[in-house]
């Protein structure tokens, strides 16, 4: 089957519109966070939502494309982290598939699993391409850890996990709450929503 046919089969037009909206949500929700001055990014909530509603592959693609588009919009550096965003979507979709998004506490566990999965990809990129630095507040953690004598790699491991843990747990909880609250008619268009609501 060609890529074209495969895509058509997996992604109906409504799934496609959902993914496009998921990408925009990833980018737009940063606004809310900056408005509330909270120490999270929430830049993968659209990815996680798509993963819950349309499965791991749709989620992964949403994440990947979000960062590529981010690269076009403001910062080509974001494109380098596209594989990380993809892993977030795939991990969230798999968690949902195996029933780890039914209860709020399961959503927290999923948030932790997503964090671990993304770290595996994010750490090498951060260390090799960026010298372990991102230009954000998290760099203080890295600096502190290195000052206490740790090497660059293990400092970045700890930084990436602490930096992402709260964000991904909050993201997973919000996404869980939203899918739970979807109108029935909408949820019926996305049969996978059952893996959260039932």
């Amino acid at each position, binding site marked *: 089957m060609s890529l074209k046919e495969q895509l058509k089969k997996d992604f*109906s*037009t*409504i799934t496609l519109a959902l993914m*496009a909206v998921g990408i925009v949500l990833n980018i737009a929700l940063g606004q809310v966070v900056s408005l509330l001055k909270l120490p999270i990014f929430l830049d993968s909530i659209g990815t996680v939502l798509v993963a819950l509603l349309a499965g791991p592959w749709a989620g992964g693609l949403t994440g990947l494309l979000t960062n590529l588009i981010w690269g076009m919009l403001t910062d080509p550096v974001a494109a380098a982290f596209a594989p990380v965003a993809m892993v977030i979507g795939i991990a969230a979709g798999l968690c949902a598939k195996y029933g780890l998004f039914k209860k709020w506490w399961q959503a927290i566990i999923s948030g932790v699993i997503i964090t671990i999965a993304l770290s595996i990809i994010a750490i090498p990129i951060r260390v090799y391409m960026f010298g372990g630095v991102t230009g954000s507040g998290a760099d203080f953690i890295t600096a502190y850890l290195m000052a206490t004598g740790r090497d660059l790699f293990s400092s970045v491991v700890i930084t990436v996990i602490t930096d992402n843990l709260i964000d991904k747990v909050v993201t997973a909880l919000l996404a869980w709450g939203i899918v739970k609250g979807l109108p*029935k*008619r909408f*949820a*019926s*268009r996305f049969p996978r929503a059952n893996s959260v609501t039932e």
Partner: protein
Amino acid sequence: MAVINVQGLTYTYPGSTSPALKDINFQIESGQLVAVIGGNEAGKSTLCLALSGLIPALFHGQMQGMVTVCGMDTQQYSPGQFAGQVGLVLQNPANQLSGMRYTVYEEVAFGLENLGISRVEMPARIENALEQVGLAELCDRSPYALSGGQQQRLALASVLALTPSVLLLDEPTAMLDPQGSQDVFEIIQKLVQAGTTVVIAEHHLEWIARYADRIIALAHGEVILDGSPREVLTSSRIQEAGINWLRYTQAAHLGIARGLWSPNTELPITLEQTLAGFRQMGTTSSTRQET
């Protein structure tokens, strides 16, 4: 000739227990302007989707009966095949922009590109469509820089460029201000004059009363009335459908008891009919007094 033929149509959305449409039967002749009215949840939008072939193709509900549009059975053809035959315009103009094109001109081209129209043929069709909706001067603007009314006209142009023989409009003016609604209504009138078949779900009764050839009233998914505007809009049964009479009709109806409106005169639905009816009574009563 009937361009739309609906027979025994019953449709239930997935996950729902009661049907959204129940045993609908009607035919629509070519070149007519047919209005579908009804309260909220009466089934107007569902009917539009069924006539456009999007139900059953995209919604996995239960459909019984048959819908044929331009001789094509909606259960046998895909929405892609209907795209050149049936145009559909929805309520919210912003949701109908493709999101893929940066100018009004290119936005109209989007559908033509999808249908594989050759590059040589496109400009004439785009310009014609923009001309019809009065957006020719704004062709280089961003679709997102337009007002809601202009965006809705753009949605119309995008569909018109595909030269459909049937145009379905699902409450196209619901989100527009009076000026925007007026513009859309004028375009629709011209299209009907030019021979397009138009089915419109609309709650702006005054306009329907004046221009529709026929009205189908829905309540709870069933057709409760189907006839000329004057028949339908003056029937006491449309109250069941959650629709009040026009003030003109109300005035005449209450006027009967006061001797201001003749019980033999059919109730009015336009300003002119109302004026004529009241004046007629006024002159007859005054002549009676004189004699």
